[in-house]
């Protein structure tokens, strides 16, 4: 029955919200800064999937153009974030996200 029904666009949206929820949960649960970053990437991907689905549903290419911007912002964020993580971890290889509260000066 499922196979005969065909793909509804809302299936993509449900999958996107599932990916976003998993990413958000991981961001809250994990303490390794690198894994937290990966969870942020997961959430960004969920949002891009949602954008592409809406782009198709509304027949507007603007949704796909926004995904290009999301990609650029994600790349810039990863570059700067990983730079900060490397700068911190060089001093303290065991640092977790809890220890980074020491940045508060």
């Amino acid at each position, binding site marked *: 029955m499922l*196979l005969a*029904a*065909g*793909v*509804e*666009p*809302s299936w*993509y*949206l*449900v*999958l996107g*919200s*599932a*990916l976003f*929820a*998993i*990413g*958000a*949960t*991981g961001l*809250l*649960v*994990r*303490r*390794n800064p*690198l*894994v937290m970053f990966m969870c942020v*990437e*997961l959430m960004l*991907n969920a949002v*891009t999937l949602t954008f*592409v689905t*809406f782009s*198709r*549903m*509304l*027949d507007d*290419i*603007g949704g*796909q*153009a926004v*995904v*290009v*911007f999301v*990609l*650029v*912002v*994600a*790349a*810039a964020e*990863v*570059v*700067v974030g*990983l*730079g900060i993580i*490397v*700068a911190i*971890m060089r001093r303290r*290889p065991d640092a977790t996200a*809890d220890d980074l509260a020491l940045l508060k000066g």
Partner: protein
Amino acid sequence: METFVFLVAAAICLAGALGVVLSKNPVHSALSLVGTLFGVAVLFVAQNADFLAAVQVIVYAGAIVVLFLFVIMLLGVDRAEDLSVDPLVGQRAAAVVAGVAIFALPVAAFATTGWEATGAVANLGSVTGSGVPDVEGIGRVLFTRYIFALEITSILLAIAVVGAVMLAKKGPQPADMIVDLPEQPTPTDDLGDADVAAPSEEGTA
């Protein structure tokens, strides 16, 4: 056919996402992330977004995940994290509740609106129904409707590059560099001495 593709790709996506969150080893998390990104790329293809699927694989799986793996190996943090320690009592449970709520809220919204999700009629055809390829369509709107955002993006990239270089730079901090600049001749003197001293050492040896 699209149903089959969707189910397989969705399973890959969810398995990869759970792998990112549940793996104890960061390297395994990064590799699971590749699976999720690839699954999302397949779903892009299924929705006629071929260009974005290619960009997704090249930029995310090819560049960003490799950057993650480089940093993991560089720092040597590929040790298992002890997930049993709960630094804040009840934080884990609260996080899971929040995650379930985040998932349930949109699903409830879709269900109550009869799975339409938008006010408009669902269009399951090509985004570019007029026969224009998606690359051409994206390029056209990027350089017309979103030209200002595109220029801002270029500034963002330049700032990110400068920031990464500043963060990765070793040695004196920027403020110290300005102070130290007049003292440049002394290092060159030391270098000269070293050059002179090196042959003499060889001679004595």
